[in-house]
């Protein structure tokens, strides 16, 4: 794994390191197949957007990467998912999810204080010292650009924050366990435009340190934030290109139809 310090070499370097690789990934829920053999390489420290209409399999794809689909009864996965060249089913679920964090569609603070929400993950992984926890909480909240708004009320209930603040709290919570990859499942679908911009800004700021995959229903958001975009349809990967390329000159007609709003 190469640590990137020089921003100029970023694009070049990141293309050489594959962080996540799926080989012929197939997913079933019961007898219903929702993903038909998808192979994707996700580069280190890139923001990859996955777009597509409802039921296109983009969220299922995301949930497979940190095995949250295990929680769905009767779900079945075939094919390989590699994280740093290692099959994720060979890792323990807990350590996989520590390395691959997830931010959900609706902001889901736990019914705890702001501090405890962020400290939850580190505590689960065995960090007990108050001082260490405070440091983690502060740096995580700073990274998710929430620190200045909440630093005076860390002990109030997280539920009292606004929707956008709650979502950035969830990002902070995910950062607190020091993941390598962050998955976003339509992170702005419940947010107002200003909060959405703030979340997107946070994502861009996190770019230098994390590999991020963004599933979004908002085509414009994919265009604003991501470097590469994958278009899913009916459980298949139709097209994966540099974002600028995909949005200006899509190769597949279905991609063109979707991004120009003719269906979906």
């Amino acid at each position, binding site marked *: 794994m190469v640590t990137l310090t020089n921003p100029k070499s970023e694009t070049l370097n990141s293309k050489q390191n594959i962080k996540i690789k799926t080989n012929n990934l197939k997913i079933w829920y019961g007898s219903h197949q929702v993903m038909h053999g998808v192979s994707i390489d996700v580069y280190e420290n890139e923001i990859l957007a996955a777009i597509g209409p409802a039921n296109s399999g983009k969220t299922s794809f995301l949930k497979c990467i940190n095995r949250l689909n295990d929680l769905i009864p009767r779900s079945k996965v075939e094919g390989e998912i590699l994280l740093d060249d290692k099959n994720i089913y060979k890792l323990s679920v807990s350590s996989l*999810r520590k390395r691959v964090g997830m931010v959900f569609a609706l902001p889901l603070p736990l019914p705890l204080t702001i501090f405890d929400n962020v400290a939850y*993950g580190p505590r689960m992984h065995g960090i007990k010292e108050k001082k260490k926890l405070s440091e983690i909480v502060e740096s995580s909240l700073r990274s998710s650009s929430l620190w200045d708004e909440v630093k005076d009320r860390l002990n109030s209930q997280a539920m009292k924050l606004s929707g956008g603040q709650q979502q950035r709290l969830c990002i902070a919570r995910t950062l607190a366990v020091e993941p390598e990859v962050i998955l976003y499942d339509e992170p702005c679908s419940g947010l107002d435009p200003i909060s959405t911009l703030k979340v997107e800004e946070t994502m861009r700021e996190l770019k230098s340190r994390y590999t991020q995959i963004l599933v979004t229903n908002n085509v414009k958001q994919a265009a604003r934030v991501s470097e590469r975009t994958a278009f899913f349809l009916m459980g298949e990967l139709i097209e994966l290109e540099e974002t600028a390329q995909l949005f200006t000159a899509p190769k597949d007609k279905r991609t063109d139809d979707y991004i120009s709003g003719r269906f979906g």
Partner: protein
Amino acid sequence: MKEYFEWLIENLILICGVISIVFVILIFIFLLKEGSGIFSHTSLTGFIFGKDWYPISDPPKFGILPLILGSFIVTLGAIIIAVPLGIASAVFLSEVVPRGIGDILKAIIELLAAIPSIVLGFIGIVILSPIIKNIFNLPTGLTALAGSVMLAFMALPTIVSIIEDAINSVPKSYREASYAMGATKWQTIRRVILPAASSGILAAIMLGIGRVIGETMAVLMITGNAAIIPTSFLQPVRTMTATIAAEMGEVIRGDAHYQALFGIGIVLFIITFLINLVSDLFLHKKRGKA
């Protein structure tokens, strides 16, 4: 015509609502009227804190402290047994076993509630009390402990069922969020699910206490009925309810003993009222916070 019908229904509902409140008030007034006479015989503090319950000696002594403590110790024991068991089996039902099996098991546990308390009393006398007698080498197995165990079983179905509902109503998203940060199942249950379900768990405990403290038949049969101040779980005790049930048949209406039994009824009423009030306050506070 339509308006008339509306008016009729509205008022019928109003009357039904008012009637149930009026009944509660009437019952309390009746208890007060029948029982308050005892306080001309024995002072209020002498009644509640009196250590001797000798209603038919001469002169009779009406101190109900042993009875209050008897009820208290049996209830405490039952709750100590039933709450951990109840939480554990509710967690097992909702988080560990697959959904379908969990539903079947829950239905079976709820069937426990259908067992008449007198049957539990039989089991207590015939099976449980000899076991307790042998284990602890006691002169009799009819003790507070026997009552606690039987009452714990009686309260368990209610407690399990309410806690299970509370756990099930914790949003699935909390679980996902916790798992997504790499927490294990046990960590998720302990740190997220149980705290989020805490108001339901508290309600379950309160209802359990209500059930246990008001229970009469089983405790009358298996606690030994000695009106002495209990110092351990291995002694026979007598509860307030058992006292009323056992002695009501032999009193003369209107005499001091009769009034004393009603006095016990008032005390019992106030205790259950307070338990309900406290649990209500707690539930509302919790809800306001969330």
